[in-house]
């Protein structure tokens, strides 16, 4: 048995033992993030040792150190790809799609006949397979980020629409009656009652769509893109067996996705502080 595998087991058992001790301890002063970060560090160390100890082919699984090295040497490319795919493609599509869905939801709420027409249509659009739509959108909107933005719009539109419509519908009837007794106008009721009470649903939609937008923008690049972008890079680097670069892109996508989601969740906490789900 080689020394790396021995270390592998020592670190595994050691990390396990420490984390169990921390989890069970009554010491409340330890920050909450200690257990998950310790877990992450141990997994990375085990990964590194296993790759070296078992001499795993870097095409199958590069060591974390190799990925980190590739990452630090390719910061410029990663940044270009990040801007191209996540900022230009995903974020613009996310903002466009979510706002369009939100405005549609308000229209549906105001004019009931739209509900019967637009909801099934939204359902239909969301059922379109992304792998079929992506090449068509490339034809329509060109190779650059605009076609990715369009794909993301199609992907996020329906979940956002359904959540917003539901939120606007589920208003407590006696609160609605209260507004009637004040003889409040439609707009007053919308702004002072229905939008605030729909916020938990709207944020659910925004959170679901944040991950969809990321996936959509990356996958859409597989069907035609300029020579930059995360999806383009992943597919071309796989072809060159440069899996360390693929992993570096995955790392960027994961970190950006988590940060984006976290930002939305944080905003949600500030805006819907009154909702039971936000209170301990």
């Amino acid at each position, binding site marked *: 048995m080689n020394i790396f595998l021995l270390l592998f087991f020592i670190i595994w058992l050691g990390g396990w033992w420490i984390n169990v001790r921390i989890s069970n301890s009554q010491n409340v002063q330890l920050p909450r993030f200690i257990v998950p970060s310790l877990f992450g560090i141990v997994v990375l160390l085990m990964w590194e040792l296993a790759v070296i100890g078992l001499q795993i082919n870097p095409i199958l699984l590069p060591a974390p150190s190799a990925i980190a090295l590739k990452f630090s040497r390719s910061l410029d490319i990663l940044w270009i790809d990040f801007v191209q795919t996540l900022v230009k493609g995903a974020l613009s599509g996310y903002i466009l799609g979510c706002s369009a869905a939100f405005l549609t939801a308000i229209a549906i709420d105001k004019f009931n006949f739209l509900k019967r027409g637009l909801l099934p249509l939204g359902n239909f659009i969301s059922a379109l397979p992304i792998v079929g739509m992506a090449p068509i959108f490339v034809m329509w909107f060109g190779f650059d980020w605009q076609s990715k933005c369009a794909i993301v719009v199609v992907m996020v539109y329906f979940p956002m629409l359904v959540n917003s419509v539901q939120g606007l519908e589920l208003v*407590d009837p*006696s609160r609605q009656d209260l*507004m009637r*007794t*004040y*003889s409040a106008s439609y707009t007053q009721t919308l702004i*002072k009652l229905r939008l*605030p*009470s729909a916020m938990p649903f709207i944020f659910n939609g925004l959170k679901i769509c944040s991950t969809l937008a990321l996936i959509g923008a990356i996958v859409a690049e597989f069907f035609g893109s300029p020579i930059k972008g995360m999806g383009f890079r992943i597919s071309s680097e796989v072809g060159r067996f440069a899996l360390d670069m693929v992993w570096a892109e995955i790392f960027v996508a994961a970190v950006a996705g988590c940060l984006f989601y976290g930002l939305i969740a944080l905003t949600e906490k500030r805006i819907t502080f*009154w909702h039971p789900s936000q209170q301990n």
Partner: protein
Amino acid sequence: MISVSNVNLTFETNDGPVNALRDVSLEVNEGDFVSFIGPSGCGKTTLLRVIAALETPTEGKVTVNNMIPDDARKAREYGYVFQAAGLYPWRTVSGNIKLPLEIMGYSASEKEDRTRKVIDLVELNGFEKKFPWQLSGGMQQRASIARALAFDANILLMDEPFGALDEIVRDRLNGELLNLWGRTGKTICFVTHSIPEAVFLSTKIVVMSPRPGRITDIIESPLPNNRDLDIRDSQEFIKIAQRVREGLKAGQTEDVF
């Protein structure tokens, strides 16, 4: 002040029409404290909602301050207190009280003045900045009453406002409500299913019974307007309570179909 004559209201449901109110007539004078009492399904809440223009009667005539109810609603002639306090959880107590004032377009200084005044009236001083979910049920209901009082309508419609509270809190709020009624001279319509509450509070008790919802008895209370909780042990109080109970019983056995 409020006049209801020969009102019928039928709800169309999946199980066929439901006769929620049949041939209901009632006069409420200025400064009255009127209670509607009866078992569930007797139409007491429906009657209150008809007065508030939240329901439209199938037949009959209703006037509120010499207007049809919907005009009275638009003229903001009444404040309505719901069974569930229905405060907006994203607003503080004073934010909730300001809600009707914002909708009705009061100036900022007037909003402050009126809010302070009604907070004094319901004794919620010191809780202005709290959110509804930080308050007890009794306090929430007080805030809800303050909200209904804020724009100073001279009619107050209350739908079982203390129904969800325990008896000790309810007794206290009953006393406070009487006090408030005495000081403001409002006309109050009050829905309840508690006999002692109805007798203790009211100058006029409307006894109702179900299937179809109708009035079985209207009792003008001989009790003085100025009362405290001890009055509940007096002979007159017990006599009125008995009459209410008999009215409720009569409604139960009477076969109308």
